[in-house]
């Protein structure tokens, strides 16, 4: 092991079994067993970077072992040299080992980060996919409801405008959907759903954007707008504009759903409001008020009231996220 120490007189300490030279300045000989114990202690303490000479000394519990011994041995160990070799601080090998070790650590960290980013990206896409699927369920339900309400339209009291097949459901929405129903409806822009031949381009979706902690409209912001509504401008439902396309696809006469007189037409798409049932419009209204009115919601302008949490009146153009946060792009 320490080849050029061999010519120095050594003696074995009786108590601890340490091998010290008998120099005036005793140097410790790091035997295999001692080194193994050292490595054990360092591992126990969480690695060469976490361990300190003091803690190592405590853990090893070897009599006669001093901080001085441990400091230098630890330093050499950290440089990643193999055990049992003589460590010369100035040797080329040390420098190489040191660099190699550092690079390895770097690579490891980067690899993990990269993996994490991948996971995050995948997660976003998966959440989107769930959202789209959910949308398909809700549409189906709406269509069913439209059918049911049609059947009941004759007998129901008030509220029905009774114009055309698809109107039956809508007037409910007018009064009932006054309160913002938007927060839970984190559907991605409709055209991304290929069912209707829309664009397959997967923008970062609002639900993900809204829920990402890195955005201003933080999911758990204290602004009491509900999970997706923190702060103005961050909570718009994409359905505001996508549903126009949708309705046309469905063959609903757009004319009877003009934005001016039917601000909540999109309610048809979004969801059968929680309790549309053929037995009571009143019940619908009361349960559609599920979402307690949020303080920040502006009620000016019919269009704005729809599902926007932002007071801004602008409507986003279709196929683009209403608020651009480039850093969220995958």
């Amino acid at each position, binding site marked *: 092991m320490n080849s050029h120490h061999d010519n120095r007189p050594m003696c074995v300490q009786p108590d601890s079994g340490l091998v010290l030279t008998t120099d005036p300045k005793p140097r410790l000989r790091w035997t295999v067993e001692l080194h193994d114990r050292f490595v054990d202690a360092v591992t126990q303490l969480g690695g060469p970077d976490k361990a300190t000479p003091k803690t190592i000394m405590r853990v090893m519990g070897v009599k006669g072992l001093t901080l001085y011994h441990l400091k230098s041995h630890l330093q050499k160990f950290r440089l990643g040299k193999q055990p049992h070799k003589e460590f010369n601080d100035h040797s080329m090998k040390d420098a190489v080992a040191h660099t190699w070790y550092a690079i390895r650590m770097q690579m490891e960290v980067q690899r993990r980060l990269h993996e994490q980013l991948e996971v995050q990206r995948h997660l976003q896409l*998966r959440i989107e996919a769930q959202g789209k699927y959910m949308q398909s*369920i809700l549409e189906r339900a709406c269509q069913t409801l439209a059918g049911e309400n049609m059947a009941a339209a004759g007998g129901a009291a008030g509220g029905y405008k009774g114009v055309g097949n698809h109107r039956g459901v809508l007037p409910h929405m007018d009064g009932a959907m006054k309160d913002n129903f938007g927060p839970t409806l984190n559907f991605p822009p409709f055209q991304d759903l*290929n069912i209707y031949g829309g664009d397959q381009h997967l923008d970062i979706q609002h639900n993900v954007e809204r829920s990402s902690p890195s955005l201003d409209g933080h999911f*758990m912001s204290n602004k*009491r707008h509900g*999970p997706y509504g923190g702060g103005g401008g961050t909570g718009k439902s994409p359905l505001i504009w996508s549903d126009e396309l949708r309705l046309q696809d469905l063959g609903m006469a757009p004319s009877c759903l003009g934005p001016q007189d039917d601000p909540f037409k999109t309610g048809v798409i979004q969801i059968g409001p929680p309790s549309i049932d053929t037995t009571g419009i009143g019940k619908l209204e009361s*349960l559609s008020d*599920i979402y307690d009115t*949020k303080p920040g919601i502006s009620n000016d302008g019919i269009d704005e009231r729809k599902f926007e949490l932002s007071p801004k009146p602008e409507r986003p153009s279709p196929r683009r996220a209403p608020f651009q946060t480039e850093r969220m792009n995958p």
Partner: protein
Amino acid sequence: MAMATDNAFEVDFYSNSTTTSITDDSPACTWNHWGSPVVDWNSFSSDPDDFQDLIESMMDDGTGFELARVAHETSNSVSTDTMVVDEETNGDEDSKGLRLIHLLMAAAEALAGDNKSRELARVILVRLKELVSHNDGTNMERLAAYFTEALHGLLDGSGGGHGKHLITNGPHHHRDEHHHTDMLAAFQLLQDMSPYVKFGHFTANQAILEATTHDRRIHIVDYDVMEGIQWASLMQALVSRKDGPQAPHLRITAISRSGSGRRSIGTIQETGRRLVAFAASIGQPFSFHQCRLDSDETFRPSALKLVRGEALIINCMLHLPHFSYREPDSVASFLSGAKTLNPRLVTLVEEEVGPIGDGGFVGRFMDSLHHYSAVYDSLEAGFPMQNRALALVERVFLGPRIAGSLARIYRTGREEESCGWSKWLATMGFKPVNISFANHCQAKLLLGLFNDGYRVEELANHRLVLGWKSRRLLSASIWTSPHSDL
């Protein structure tokens, strides 16, 4: 349990009327059907503390229990993140919550006792009824409303026709009563407000993806496909998979039960259609099948259509908040049948229950209370100020679960074992499969989207557990067949 402090809550302590805040007409919530209280509460004027005196005075024959002991047990059995136990001062929400807990526990104790104390239980429940509300108030108050109702169901159930119906069919019965739009809305809310559904689905899906990277054909047998949303994200992931064969064929066989009546979010056929349409929309090769269970829910593996060379996955989601309860025999039959098929992977998601101990009905009751209070708190954190939304989810999903769960505890003396199915799989010889760094990472990221209160723990290499604060709630574990070389 965190108390929501920003809800105005008004309670009329002195009124004998039924709480008017209950607006829904679900049959379980028909307070009016209950008998008039044994005692005329109007005669008691002031402090609710008088009630305790009343109780004690009723127990002069020594068959009762001391509320002091109850209080002591409460503070021992309830975990560290419940409210601080302080003096009972009026208007202090924490003490109000604590009072409710005392009452609930007292009622549970009374119910677990002999016939004489059943009348005592009835009295306590009446008192509780006045203090709680399904729709208003703090989490504790709403939670207590459902527990009170469930206890009352137990009281009436052993004998009463209506009540019995409540108990045995539990959540399933309730579920059919709700209009399916309620179900949908509540489900949507649940997904938005909390990560429970996504945690189970995504963890399972990630494991499936990792186990099938080189397969051209994947066959998943889904024990309870419900509305099928789990597979949407799996399909998306398969379609965008870079490594492995492009567009592997996905086949899903949904286990269906005969005679289960109309499913609330739609039938299995509808689910199949939806999945087919969704797959088509993203270009995923897909086919959908059903496999019927026998009338006693025995699973016959031979009824499955298998294809050579496909990777077989068994997917078993239990206890997600919107799921119906499945009888243990049915689950056991399914999982043991699955073993004979030598599946590549078994994904299991189940509720995580507290340790059983020997607390009897009351102990399990308190554990259940703790469990659901954590759930309530977590939902509320996900949707602050949205009491009505919460109330909907509670009414549609949680209330029936509470009732069903308590009924089962009452009847059988225990609810499911703690991580019961996970242990069961181990004893059956299934081998655990490690959950990857990516999977664990995904779970953490997912929870980060919701609230800091959620945590994911890796209780074992093959098991991730989702919890709220210090309470573990849902466990996802991954297994493979005993002879697999995964």
